[in-house]
């Protein structure tokens, strides 16, 4: 674009900058409100530290929950299935942790575009399951499936309850996006535990009932974030 179009816009849009001063009474009220509750605060840790913290929490919770189950999935998966699913789930969990921290710290520099990367991760997970796991027909598809979704959501609810107070300490911008990020973290944890615990290692079951619990967790998280009031104190 030519410089002079920008200058032309600068002149017209920016106008007279001194004309938009807030009134002195409003300025005074703002200062009174802020200084009335002025206390020292400790800044949040850096983004890498916080993301590593969430990732560690994810890993610890996943290991504890997997240790508590009978690990049928772990026994049934082939080495290729196990390696592929673990890699995709680990990469997804890292993405979700970074996304979660971005929601907590306004104005943070985003290294990747979440709306572009998250669908790519989701497609990678679907492809891994669709290509590496068998597609048998099961007459009890629904009857055998819904308990898995329920279990995935139960695990997600526990994980969300544990990390929500930490996330809410930081959220100053979009609560819906933060809720969705909490849902994604908790839902991914649910999927990870289900994957190692479930004895039905078939593509239709995994795609519908396991990944379905992740989708539901994200939706519920977004809804809860939209509805819940912000944390009132820092």
């Amino acid at each position, binding site marked *: 674009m030519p410089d002079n179009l920008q200058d032309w816009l600068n002149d017209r849009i920016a106008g007279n900058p001194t004309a938009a001063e807030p009134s002195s009474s409003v*300025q005074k009220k703002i200062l009174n409100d802020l*200084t009335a509750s002025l206390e*020292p605060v400790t*800044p949040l840790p850096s983004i890498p530290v916080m993301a590593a913290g969430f990732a560690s929490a994810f890993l610890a919770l996943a290991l504890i929950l997997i240790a508590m189950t009978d690990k049928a999935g772990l026994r049934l998966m082939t080495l290729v299935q196990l390696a592929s699913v673990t890699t995709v789930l680990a990469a997804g969990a890292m993405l979700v942790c970074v996304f979660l921290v971005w929601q907590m*710290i306004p104005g943070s520099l985003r290294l990747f575009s979440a709306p572009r990367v998250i669908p790519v991760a989701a497609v990678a997970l679907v492809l891994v399951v669709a290509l590496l796991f068998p597609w048998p027909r099961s007459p009890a598809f629904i009857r055998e499936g819904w308990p898995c979704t329920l279990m995935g959501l139960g695990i997600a609810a526990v994980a969300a309850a544990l990390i929500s107070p930490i996330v809410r300490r*930081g959220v100053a911008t979009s609560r819906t996006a933060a809720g969705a990020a909490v849902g994604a973290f908790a839902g991914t944890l649910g999927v990870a535990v289900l994957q190692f615990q479930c004895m039905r290692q078939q593509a239709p079951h995994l795609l519908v009932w396991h990944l379905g619990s992740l989708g539901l967790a994200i939706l519920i998280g977004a809804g809860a974030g939209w509805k819940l009031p912000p944390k009132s104190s820092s």
Partner: protein
Amino acid sequence: MTPGASQPHAQRGESTEEREFMELMVRYQRADASAVEELVNRLSPRLLRFLAWPRLNPHEAEDLLQDCWMRIHRGRHTYRPSQPVLPWIFAIARHTRLDGYRKRRRLESREKLVAEVPEPVATLAASTTPNDEILGLIETLPKSQQEVLVMLKVSGMTLEEVARSTGSSVGSVKQKAHRAYVKLRELLPKGGRDAG
């Protein structure tokens, strides 16, 4: 020519300003009242122009400004020392503005028709922008392009600052600004096009 890169002197000036803002924010986190006062005095006019865009009346804009400062205050621990202050502040302001817009829309949808239409209230944006025509043109752009343009031109932010504030990449901001300029060039009256 990339948008936002046409004022090198202003940008160099802003980096000094930005360092001052960083120091003030750190002092604010340590509960230094004089830092709060300086930040409020220096940033409120910029925030008000951003919050009032495009045609909000002064009363509503000042309400939003108060709300915005309370959010900044509640979330001041989320500011990371050594990070730029403006993107952090404007990310919060952006959501204050968005919530204010949603609230107004909810109220408007509940309002009943009255027999007499009240006199239109003078708008803050109108008093700050001499050319109403350009306002009308910008309002025809998609919301995301309007937002980028307002942050670049009204708030005087850099591309990276806008990217940080809007939670997107610098490339995406550049693309939106470019599209906005192309569209504006098409829409501009002849006088404006000649200027460009």
